[in-house]
């Protein structure tokens, strides 16, 4: 049974809202979002998880170890941007 989590996850305690991951993502999966509860006031957020191709460029570029991306081939179930449940392994 597929695991229930996002292909790319952001640790809001570590993210400093620098925007490098948003800039580098080839599929425009992430966006900067204002959020008063977060450390720096702005944070990156996963908005279009269905487009994620798990290339890990966001995880590599993140200076604060705040992003973890699932490996290719791991079956995951998650909600896409329009709210319906999908299962992907890539």
């Amino acid at each position: 049974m597929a695991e229930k989590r996002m292909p790319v996850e952001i640790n809001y305690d570590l993210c400093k809202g620098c925007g490098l991951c948003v800039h580098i993502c080839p599929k425009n999966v992430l966006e900067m979002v204002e959020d008063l509860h977060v450390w720096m006031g702005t944070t990156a957020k996963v908005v279009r998880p269905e487009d994620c191709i798990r290339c890990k460029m966001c995880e590599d570029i993140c200076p604060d170890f705040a992003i973890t991306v699932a490996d290719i081939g791991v079956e995951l179930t998650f909600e896409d941007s329009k709210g319906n449940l999908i299962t992907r392994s890539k």
Partner: protein
Amino acid sequence: MAVDYAKYLRMDKMPLYWCPGCGDGIVLKCYLEAIDELGWSKDDCAMVSGIGCAARVTGYVDFHTLHTIHGRAIAVAVGIKMAHPDKHVFVFGGDGDLVHIGGNHLLHACRRNIDITVVLINNWIYGMTGGQHSCTTPPGAKASTAPRGSYEPTIDVCKMAIGAGAGYVARGFAGDPVRLKKLIKEGLEYKGFALIDVFSPCPINFGRRNKLGDPAKLLEHMKSFLVSSAKAKRMSEEELKGKFITGVLHKDESKPELTEAYKGLVEKAQASDEYWAKYAKGTLTDADKYKITREELKKLYPYDVETPLKEWKKL
């Protein structure tokens, strides 16, 4: 196979203290990934750093770490490496720390080709002290001590290191982490002095003064200075002016490594029948020694003062 960074980090010291968008964290991650792939145990690794933003790395990695004084990290690392030749010794530092004030130690560590891996985080600025210009600030770029743009020429650290005789010299870019990790890994494996000059964005102290406050914009600006070594071969001298070549710039497998050369010297010395050589080999005989009497020693040392000799505390 995601790398478990927590294994190498002192998690209780997180989150990292660097500014948003600073490249130091990226370089540290590539570094830990390289060590993870090499399978080195953190018990065998020692890391030294001087003073500066990049020098705060030693606080986060779970190795034997020393946070020394400004500019002298490489000298401290040479001391550790010579005392423990079989251990891995790394140095992290910024362009101000290792090239500007510590240039002399970098120069001679290159000449000696001692097996130390130096990751030089080149953010073109003295970041921690508020953004003063350093020896790598591009001409015309503004800094807190160059309000009308830096007028000084800069230094190509890699050319200097190759000239001084470093065995492995490479240049990487924090905006290109995958290739940077390969360069660092190759540097770690190289038996001799490895210098990796990493261009790393400093959006807060450099970027904001040069309308590049957005880390992404500064990343692209830095990329414009860089040319891959493959492309550089096809470019003319004129086009390469002001550009910096990335990739492995120099690798010399034949150059002897300092601690190996020193082992040869020790073998030569221990082959002799000098006192300390025989002492080390345990072949000292009573003939080599002299049995002194208390009176004779009293003549040599007639003072009413204690001696460290167990036999004669007071002469």
